[in-house]
């Protein structure tokens, strides 16, 4: 599905279903240098279970035009504009990593509009190591390799994918290689500089779910403790033996957690 947002063409995957204004909507927001395809299984499930699904490609990512947005706040503004452009009054928002921060910020700014939020691999704050920022700034392949190395739990580094025949780390690496020059750096810098996560969390009034990878090195579960406290009454699901790429490493566990949360 193509959507014009602030004069820029945006792509959103809808799970092979036409958008139906009568159905509740879930917006999926990817992380750094990713695109909608990281949500393929989960978003397709909801699209075929009486939900509208918009798994977006953020500006400057995947098939969307424009340049990568420079801050989490800018992405939050853009997500609100997405809802405006699609005439969606209320939506559930699901985000991963950078996308989780953007969803959190959006929920804090749009109390009436955001019905529920699910944050996967969140960390507040989300500092990024200098070595990674430097490599991303220089558009070095090392940046993709470092992220791939840190994003999967040790067991999953050697495979064992639930999705038959797909080599998880190779696929993750290849997806980032497709990102446009500068996208990863812009995304990582947005994560690194975002400092108002707990403020946003304090404003959130909708139900919230946190899905944490037990062995996440990129956004360690311990970094979500303050966020959990700030999000009153939030539900926390910790996926065992999982790293930061939780949707890929444990697609069924993630889907089950999302389904229990969003459909209850």
């Amino acid at each position, binding site marked *: 599905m193509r959507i014009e947002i602030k004069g820029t063409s945006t792509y959103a*995957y809808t799970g*092979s279903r036409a958008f139906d204004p009568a159905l509740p909507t879930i917006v999926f927001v990817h992380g750094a240098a990713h*695109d909608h*395809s990281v949500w*393929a*299984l*989960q978003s*397709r*499930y909801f699209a*075929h279970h009486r939900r509208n699904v918009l798994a977006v490609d953020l500006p400057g990512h*995947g098939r969307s035009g424009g340049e990568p947005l420079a801050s989490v706040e800018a992405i939050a503004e853009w997500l609100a504009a997405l809802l405006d452009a699609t005439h969606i009054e209320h939506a559930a928002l699901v985000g991963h990593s950078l996308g989780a921060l953007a969803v959190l910020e959006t929920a804090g700014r749009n109390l009436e509009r955001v019905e529920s939020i699910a944050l996967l691999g969140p960390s507040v704050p989300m500092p990024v*190591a200098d*070595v990674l920022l430097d490599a991303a700034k220089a558009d070095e392949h*090392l940046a993709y*390799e*470092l992220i*791939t*190395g*840190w994003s999967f739990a040790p*067991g999953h*580094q*050697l*495979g*064992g*994918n*639930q*999705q*038959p*025949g*797909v*080599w998880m*780390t*190779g*696929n993750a690496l*290849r*997806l980032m*290689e*497709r990102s446009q020059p500068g996208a990863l750096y812009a995304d990582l810098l947005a994560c690194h500089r975002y400092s108002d996560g707990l403020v946003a969390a304090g404003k959130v009034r909708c139900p919230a779910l946190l899905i944490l990878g037990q062995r996440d090195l990129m956004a360690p579960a311990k970094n979500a403790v303050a966020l959990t406290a700030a999000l009153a009454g939030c539900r926390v699901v910790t996926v065992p033996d999982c790293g930061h790429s939780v949707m890929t490493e444990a*697609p*069924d566990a993630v*889907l089950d957690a999302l389904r229990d949360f969003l459909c209850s």
Partner: protein
Amino acid sequence: MTKPKTTRFDTLALHAGARPDPATGARATPIYQSASFVFRDSDHAAALFNMERAGHVYSRISNPTCAVLEERISALEGGVGAIAVASGQAALHLAIVTLMGAGSHIVASRSLYGGSHNLLDFTLPRFGIETTFVDPRNLDAWRAALRPNTRLLFGETLGNPGLEVLDIPRVAGLAHEHGLPLLVDSTFTTPYLMRPFEHGADLVYHSATKFLSGHGVVIGGLLVDGGRFDWTEPGKSAGKFPTLTEPYAGFHDMVFVDESTTAAFLLRARREGIRDFGACMAPMTAFQILQGIETLPLRMQRHIENTRRIVAFLAAHEMVESVGYPELPQHPDRALATELLPRGCGAVFSFSIRGTREQGRKFIESLRIFSHLANVGDAKSLVIHPASTTHFRVSAEDLRAAGITEGTIRLSVGLEDAEDLIEDLSRALYAAGKS
């Protein structure tokens, strides 16, 4: 400096895709000899069928043992994923029919395995897919053969039986210039000797019957997706691959490039190709190939070591007219081989003996350790006469073009003691000379 966390080739050959069995603790990958897999409930069943959940439904589509093998070869090749199929021929067929239908065209190297040549030259035209064969060393010929309906370029990393080294960087560059993928048969080299994706290839397949399994006991094929090719690039590939970019009525109007940015080809190949054509791999076969791959690095080192010694022996023998091995100074692809195949040029090569066809027959029949049969890549050494066997359906003109003469003999060098192999060859050459 911080280094990326990576696992090296030899370790991947043993571990990629596999973990101790969660149900039993079995360290070896279990042979999941089951046609089907139970659903948790109706919703789970529907979600598996509709690609909303990951998992196995029916072993024609996917199987846990085969999936380990698929991940392992993907890891070794540096791809995004793979499909295990019934044979190398099934892998080639699956690649082609996933990308195109009637009215399409392929440009292929003319130095191919005879079975691949048969498929392209005789069988696929019946289904409306034509192929133009070109000298793999002539980039202008590749270019001149391109048509508006060309959908694929195809060659072998090492031509069969002449061992022409495919200039993957240049052929891939030409393919990409025209929005086309390059498919490579990497059977002779295996990922231990060359990883074609690193040189620009887009799809790789293997007859896993050969060096990957390594012991001549199974028939199997593996098709690997590099995940780099952009099937929708404006002005290049856009519009050329509707099987991947347009709704597929056979699977809920799925648009495969929408579902997966990197592995759309694999999705279609599994959701249509394996489902409908059905050339799947049996789990027992996958297990045996996995066992073979565990020792691939060690075996390939020995294959290369033995081959180099035998090549040197034959090149110096008075009964031998020529030896075609890319590491030899006179081989036209020596420089390219040095660049692309620094670890070695495989263990299959051809040579020609001086004399009559009868002397060639005498040579083969005098061998005691080399087995006379139609296969390569076995732990045991093998020999064959291509003109009367593997390439017997190829025209005389094409045989000449492929560098095959009546005196051409192909060896597949195994893992025996090299001295024993050289003694065997020496005895047979002597017998041929006396006949």
